[in-house]
Each structure stands twice: as structure tokens, then as C-alpha cells.
């Protein structure tokens, strides 16, 4: 019978995951402002422009505004403040 070896686990120590709540959803988007957040990846601006056109043609009662963070992959508190103040919902994209 082959010898049984005791070996170490090679993995590091993961952090505790703390649950976060999702925001309450809207009953509908009519009359609301949806921020389209261009995440700065190549061609994301074109994608968001097309999203804005789609809303304009299919859901004209929804107001849309495009916005960009200051940097790629970085939280932009100032941008979030603007969205919270003037918007009701957000669509982020196009993230890799």
C-alpha cells in the first residue's frame, strides 16, 4: 500500500466576504434619468452612444445621460455623487 503523505495547502488566506444589499428597483423608468456610464474601455463610448439612441427611439419617456469616470478601473466618488444626485438608475459598460 502506497504511503500517505501529509502536505501543506498552497493557497493564501482570502478575506471575509461581507454581504452588500442591492438598491431597491424602480417601478418603471418613465420620466426617470438613467446614467449611461462609459467605463473608458476602447469603443465603450460608441456602445453607450448606441444605447442612448436605442432609448431615444424605443423608450423616449426615459431620459438618458452619458458620463465617464476619471480613470479606468478606479472608483470615482465624484461621478457617483453626480449620478446619485441627478439620476435614478445606471447602466455601466462595457466592462471587460
Amino acid at each position, binding site marked *: 500500500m502506497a504511503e500517505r*503523505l501529509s502536505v501543506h495547502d498552497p493557497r*493564501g488566506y482570502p478575506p471575509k466576504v461581507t454581504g*452588500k444589499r442591492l438598491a431597491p428597483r424602480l417601478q418603471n423608468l418613465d420620466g426617470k434619468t438613467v446614467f449611461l456610464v462609459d467605463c473608458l474601455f476602447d469603443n465603450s463610448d460608441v456602445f453607450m452612444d448606441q444605447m442612448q439612441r436605442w432609448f431615444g427611439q424605443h423608450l423616449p419617456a426615459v431620459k438618458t445621460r452619458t458620463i465617464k469616470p476619471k480613470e479606468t478601473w478606479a472608483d470615482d466618488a465624484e461621478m457617483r455623487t453626480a449620478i446619485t444626485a441627478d439620476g435614478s438608475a445606471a447602466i455601466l*459598460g462595457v466592462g471587460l
Partner: protein
Amino acid sequence: MAAALEQDGVPTVAVHTHVFARLARATALANGMPRMRQSFVPQPVVDRTPGQLRGYIEGNDPISGRPFVQEVLEGLTKPLDEKDLQGLSFERTTPRLLEPDTAENLHRLFAENHWTDFLPIVLPTEERVERMLKGTKLPPDKVVGRLRPAVFREFWEFTVEKVAVNAVMAGARPEYFPVILALASSGVTARSSSTNSFATISVVNGPIRNEIGMNSGIGAMGPYDHASATIGRAYSLLSQNLQGGSVPGETYMGSLGNWYAYSAAFAEAEERSPWEPLHVQKGFKANESVVCVFFGGWYTHAGYGPRATWQEKMRRSLSAVEQFSPPLLVLDPIAARGFVELGFDKKQKLIDWCAKNALLPAREYWDNQWIQYLNRPRAVAGVEPYASRLRAKPDEIIQIFEPEEINIVVAGGETQGAWKMISGGLRGMASVDAWR
């Protein structure tokens, strides 16, 4: 950012391309928001026309198979259920020891769990790890640092003992352990999840090179000495295992992969270099032992010289590099001495020449997706030198690197006057002596 907006009370949908679905969901889970609303469009978005992107919007989400816009609209308006409101809190632990098993079964377990690089490993038995720990005076439970595969992932923490486990797996010897600990402490992962398939190239300077027999002569860049081969491999294995994985589709998204990621560590040939060594350039004393970590490995150019047309050759190489990843030049001592004969009596003079001759038309500089991601926002914000590069007319020739981004190391066996130009920005430095 989507999680932060949800926390701010803003219902949010994050749109990703479909190849990132597993990664996006794993990241949401690690953020405690596993039910974050995510919708997917086909890959790629880059280089698609407005009409093609409109087609994505009007088409189906390739992950759910449902209309993309329906996914987005429901993501913002469909009422939440109890699980959505709770989020998900949980502890994740990794045990110190695995269940005892046969060597054959353990090798299979390590491979199946993506804990190896798929080359044979040395199983980290308690005895072997204990022997490795004798390579440092520091206690096994000392925290060495934290690593993560990407800026949007969570940091995992690790101790001296955990680094020793991975050093054993790589086949390293205890006398190499301080170098491996220094690399682990650098804060730079050798297993980035970037789509650019980045790797790291580690340069070792100071007395430790000779103490542990690192080869800076013939075949310096490998695979021709035990220390360099296993130190580079240990850094790679510890990065993937201590940061929470490097698994394709989940924690690794490099499209092509990278052979440098197996093992890329070497020593500078300080004794045969006509210039001051790298670590001294960076402010360390000559008698200190230091590791410098270069992040890149994306391109490699090479040449000989300096021959009569070296300037033309070097200019072509400098203009052909990827402009988001500055070059690390590795020069054989013959090539280095040749540059001295041409008047480059200091490394810095050659670095300055390279910076002045790394040129591109502005149009080409900006027509690069990573320059668009990383440097364009800085340019728009007025940060120099990016702002000046953005102001340049499309055909204007611009300098693409600053001197401080370019580095030169001397290594090689003097069998020819070779040089290599490797993608590698200096990302981290660490004292080896602190880990002895």
C-alpha cells in the same frame, strides 16, 4: 463601481462581454453582491462599428439567451427578492494541511485545482516546508504581504510559511528563500489576470547572486541554473496560489498566455558590466541584495551591437514596442562595452537616447486600446506628458516614453554582443536582506 452605486441606492446593471461572464460573477460574489445585475453582449466590442454594436443591443444576451435590452430593463425595474436584499456574507478559509493521501493522488489534486503550472512539482510535505523555513530567521506566521490578480479583485494575504510551501513546490532550495520572500513581498503579482497576458521579469542584484550561485553568464536568461529557474518558478506559483488563483476564465483572462510566466528571473552581471548596477541606480547600496520586478513580458525584440547601423535598428525596435509597456533592455557585456566606446559611459546616457528615439506619429500612439484605456483619461485630465501627446496633430511625431520608464540591465556570457528589448515597466523593488 457597480457595487458602489448599488450601495449609494442607485439600481445598476453592469454590461460585460460574454467571455468575462465567469470572472464578472466571481468578482460580484467576492464583493458580497452575488446577485448583482449583469448583462452580457458578444465579444468583441473593440473595433466594432456603431451598427454592429447596435446589433448587440438589439440582439440576445449570449449568456442568458434572452433579449439584451430585456435583461437590462428588468435589471433596473424587477422587484428584488429576499436574497437580493440580504447580500451574502461568508468566511472563506484555507486549511494549513490537506487530507493525507498518496503522492499520486496529491499530484492529481494539485493539478486539478490549478495549483501548479502543469509541470511536475515537489509535494510540500511538512518536512520539506520546515527545511525551507530554515532559509530565513523570520517566523512562519509573519505576514509577508497581499496579492490579487487584478485591481478589481480582493486581496489575499499570506505568511512566510505559505511562501515556503510554494517555494518547495517550485523545487527551490532554502538558501534561495530570502529572494523568494522578497519577490512575494513586492506587492506585484507574477500572475496578472490582464487580457494582455502580462508576466513578470525579476532581476536580482547584490551579493546574494553569488552566494546562491545565480548564473549571470552564458544562458543567464535561462534555463541554465537551478537558482534562477526555481526562484522565477516559485514567484509564479506563489503568485497564483496566494492571490486566490490564476484559472482561465475566472482569475486569468490573458488571451494568448505567456511563456515568461513559467519562470523569468535572472541576475545582473555586475562584475562584468561597465556601468553601475540596477539596484544602485535605484538608490540601494552596492552591498545590499535587492530584487526588481518588471511587469510586462508582452513583446521581445533583439539585436546585436552596437554595429554601424545600431541607431536605425534600435529606433525601429523602439518604435515597434507596445507603447503602453516600456522596454527593459538586457545587454550582453560585449554590447554594453560597445556602447561605452561610443560615448555612453553611463547607463543613463543610453536610457536618455532611447527615450528621445522612442517615437511614433501621434495617430499611431493613440490608436492603441490600452493607451486609450489608461492614458487618454489622464490626458483629458491634463496630466503630462499625456496631455501634450493628445494635443499633438495626428502626423506629429511624439516621444512615447520618459527616461524614467526605461531600464537597462547587463547580463550574458559574452559569446556575442547580443541585446534584448523586453516589455517591462519597473513595478516593484524589495530588499532581500530584510528576509534573510
